[in-house]
């Protein structure tokens, strides 16, 4: 933890000199913001979990009911199992991609990094539909297997289906955070190890892996938590025996004022905070930062032809696998009818013209909302990361936990909470209730994505040595200057990673916004896709809109990768 390096002289005898006014007021402001947009709305909803439905009095009975029901215990175990297995599979997908692209010199690293982000950019309900088309029991692959070999593979059945879809969907969390981390390792570490005679697996195990750990843990814990509270995928695969679907099914059904749905939400929140705390402990007491910032990133090695071929082969196979849903979606978007056959009956471009004529507001809205949400997230994420890891402000860990807690709030809960909180407040200068103003959707998106940005920023900050700041301050720089000139530039890779993750996932979020959309002019893309996908004739246009979403967010991702590369190079030149 930071030693208190304040330079102000206290006017009182009390040791006020140790209070860092800048960070403290920032912390207070963020705390108040989170209180209004996260804690209170959710508390309004969660309050129900502790209320006796028949008398309105405080009770713990609802929790007793939860633990007495075998269905809920089973759901808890299933959720845990699926989350853990998804982390394992996501790691298997992400590790080679991250390692190869940061470790070796070969063409297309940026492209691969971008393609590797694309799976994240798909609304869950579209992802499951697309996966079914190829991998379903009667999907293309199984139909062909059945026709030619007389057997099928149950890729998508039960919990395994959820694990498959989730790992493919969420592995980019690990990829992006691990890559940012690996790119931040000081290559002199590796050179030193090489000089001392270490190489190959040993070098990887003793140097690369430990130094890349903050990024990996950041990514892996996000995957775990996201899978743990994800609704869309289990629901679309019709798997109900998991916690999040149980909570959602109970809360959103008409007329059921049963508090158990809220109890499950509370349990989701608590468990998420608990696992955050565990990963916090795992990182505690270890120093991953390196003082020097060399050219940045691992030593890049050239590959010989054989190695290169192997590399491309592995990467190619992984990419084909993880991009299969997008290929299926693309085929769907240009197909006339696709029903129980390996490929569509015919092809058409009509769906795209349908979309372009009546869906462009969805696109502009999404870019605006997701862009603003991502921006809010990285600003808050950087500030919170700094406050938590670099200052001794009272309650800083609470700030971290609250911000991370957003991860566990089901979107519907947040949506309902906002309606309850903000509906009766009027938007200044208009007669629109605050809850139905489009800006509220931006805040809802930002709050739900804050944890991604925060984890990325924390990982980045952990790699910046404290001594660099101390050096700056001892040379007379103020705290603010230090943060602006030293900390933030060194964290840039991680911050951009946080922005990209927030932006890309916010662009396809549906659950919170669907509650808050009050007029179609304000609706984002995911809502548009959802609306199209609710009718037989809308499958094609819905898919087309999905592809457009993927292209736009993909372009955004590619752009920010280019910016990362450019900043890196700029920094390299300045040295």
């Amino acid at each position: 933890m930071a030693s208190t390096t304040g330079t102000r002289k206290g006017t009182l005898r009390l040791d006020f000199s140790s209070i860092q006014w800048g960070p403290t007021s920032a912390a207070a402001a963020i705390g108040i913001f989170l209180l209004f947009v996260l804690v209170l709305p959710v508390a309004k909803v969660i309050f129900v979990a502790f209320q006796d439905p028949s008398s309105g009095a405080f009770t713990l009975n609802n929790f007793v009911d939860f633990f007495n029901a075998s269905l809920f215990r089973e759901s808890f175990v299933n959720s845990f199992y699926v989350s853990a297995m998804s982390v394992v599979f996501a790691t298997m997908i992400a590790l080679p991609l991250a390692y190869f692209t940061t470790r070796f010199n070969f063409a297309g690293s940026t492209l691969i990094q971008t393609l590797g982000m694309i799976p994240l950019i798909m609304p869950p309900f579209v992802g499951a539909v697309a996966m079914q088309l190829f991998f379903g029991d009667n999907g293309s692959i199984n139909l062909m297997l059945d026709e030619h070999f007389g057997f099928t593979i149950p890729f998508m059945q039960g919990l395994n289906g959820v694990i498959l879809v989730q790992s493919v969907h969420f592995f980019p969390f690990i990829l992006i955070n691990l890559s940012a981390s690996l790119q931040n390792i000081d290559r002199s570490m590796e050179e030193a190890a090489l000089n001392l005679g270490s190489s190959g697996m040993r070098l990887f195990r003793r140097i690369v892996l430990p130094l890349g750990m903050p990024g990996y843990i950041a990514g892996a814990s996000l995957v775990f938590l996201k899978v743990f509270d994800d609704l869309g995928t289990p629901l679309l695969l019709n798997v109900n025996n998991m916690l999040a679907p149980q909570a959602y099914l109970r809360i959103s059904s008409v007329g059921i004022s049963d508090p158990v749905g809220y109890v499950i939400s509370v349990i989701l929140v608590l468990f998420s905070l608990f696992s955050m705390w565990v990963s916090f402990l795992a990182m505690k007491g270890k120093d991953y930062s390196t003082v020097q910032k060399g050219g940045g990133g691992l030593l890049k090695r050239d590959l010989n032809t054989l190695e290169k071929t192997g590399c491309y082969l592995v990467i190619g196979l992984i990419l084909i696998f993880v991009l299969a849903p997008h290929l299926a979606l693309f085929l769907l978007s240009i197909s006339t009818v696709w029903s129980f056959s390996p490929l569509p009956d015919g092809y058409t471009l009509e769906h795209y013209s349908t979309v372009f004529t009546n869906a462009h507001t969805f696109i502009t809205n999404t870019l605006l909302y997701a862009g603003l949400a991502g921006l809010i997230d990285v600003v808050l994420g950087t500030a919170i990361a700094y406050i938590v890891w670099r200052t001794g402000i009272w309650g800083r860990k609470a700030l971290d936990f609250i911000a991370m807690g957003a991860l566990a709030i089901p979107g519907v809960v947040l949506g309902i909470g906002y309606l309850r909180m903000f509906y009766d407040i009027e938007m200044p200068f208009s007669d629109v209730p605050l809850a139905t103003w489009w800006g509220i959707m931006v805040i809802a998106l930002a709050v739900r994505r804050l944890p991604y940005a925060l984890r990325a920023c924390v990982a980045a900050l952990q790699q910046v040595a404290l001594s660099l700041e101390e050096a700056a301050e001892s040379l007379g720089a103020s705290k603010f200057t230090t943060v602006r000139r030293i900390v933030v530039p060194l964290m840039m890779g991680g911050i951009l990673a946080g922005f990209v993750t927030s932006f890309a996932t916010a662009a396809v979020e549906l659950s919170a916004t669907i509650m808050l959309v009050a007029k179609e002019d304000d609706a984002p893309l995911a809502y548009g896709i959802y609306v199209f996908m609710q009718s037989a004739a809308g499958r094609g246009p819905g898919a087309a809109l999905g592809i457009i979403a993927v292209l736009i967010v993909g372009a955004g991702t590619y752009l920010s990768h280019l910016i990362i590369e450019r900043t890196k190079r700029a920094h390299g030149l300045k040295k």
Partner: protein
Amino acid sequence: MKSKKNLFAVSLLSASIGLASMPAMANQSKLTIVTSFPQDLTQVFEDAFEKANPDIDLEVLKKKTSSGIKYIKETASKNQTDLFWASAPDAFEVLKDSSLLQQYEVKASSIPEKIGSFPIHDPEGFYKGFAAAGYGIMWNTRYLKAKKLPAPTGWDDLKKPTYFGHVGMSAPSRSGTTHLTVETILQAEGWDNGWAMLKQMSGNFKSVTERSFGVPDGVNSGNFGLGIVIDFFGLSSQGAGFPVEFIYPQGTALVPANIGIISNAPNRAGAERFIDFLLSDQGQELLLDPKIRRLPVNPEIYAKAPQGFPNPFKDDALKSALHFDLNLSKNRYNLVNSMFDVMITYRMDDLRAATGAIHEAETALAEKPDAEAQALLEQAKALVAKLPISEAEANDPDFAAVFTQKRKKASDNVNGRQAEVEAQWDSFVVANYQQAQSLAEKALSML
């Protein structure tokens, strides 16, 4: 605020995407409709209505029926919605009970009082029927051909072992229309037999989908072969070119899809005009659009319908549709949903395993009769069908109140907690399914 936002968005994007049109709307009043209907339906009506009423800007907001009700309830303090437009009459009953609808007398005169045995409009005038909907079975013809399955002719067929693992339905707690199907079967067959039949059918399910549209989607794509759906899902899928068929089985219910004016609607006059438009000849005729395919409530419109289009005022299968008791359905609404979820949705694996074992033993028994094994098998079937509560209990308002408990006054008292009751049911049915499975396996081993 809006122009500021659009400016921002446009400047962000102007290079890649055409300018968002920002028509300056002078002297126009806004009319907001919350609906669960798909784009294919609403767009047709929006275009036609705005053309006929250029002074009204129609704003269509799509939400699932259940989310829509929640939204209207949550926003009631400063209501901005004029109309609620959805299928399930039950949903309108919920809104009516919460005093969120207002009465209105329609002008159209050519609409009869009843369709089948169901009043088309709410007798108290709080909501109006604009189209009829029946429930039935749709299937994918390619799927059935590839798997060598016969086409079904009625609900009873879906219980047969041939369809094991090929059927899909939505959960009644998730879909108002599915709830009506379940309630129809319970009312047509009686409480005990109805549930027994539902469980036998559900034992053949491949999945219980979360969205009601998940069922036609699954059948259209061939993910499963047959689905239990509301008619227009089947008919519009056909209209969209999918290789599917749809039938009304005997014992379907014919129920109107509805529209109602929300209390304190900001544009009541506009809302009335929309309802009148919907019930006019022009509005009724729009329902025949191939993408919509709903049954008009004005009998005269059927003269313009395409060949083979069902006519509820003439066709025998539909005319004999049973009398649907809306009151009974309303009072046990949440209880029936909860029972279905506890016994079927959440215990699909156990139910499927028991059903599979029973099918196997039954097939073996047909070839090699054996009295003792037959007795075991009957026992197994009875165990699967067994219900945790009787019909009398289910219809007892005090007991059903556990599932709707909403304390309105401090003196209101509710006994029992829903989750507690459900946990008891859950252990009851799981034990029965497991025992049924082992009995059926034992019967099979004796042959």
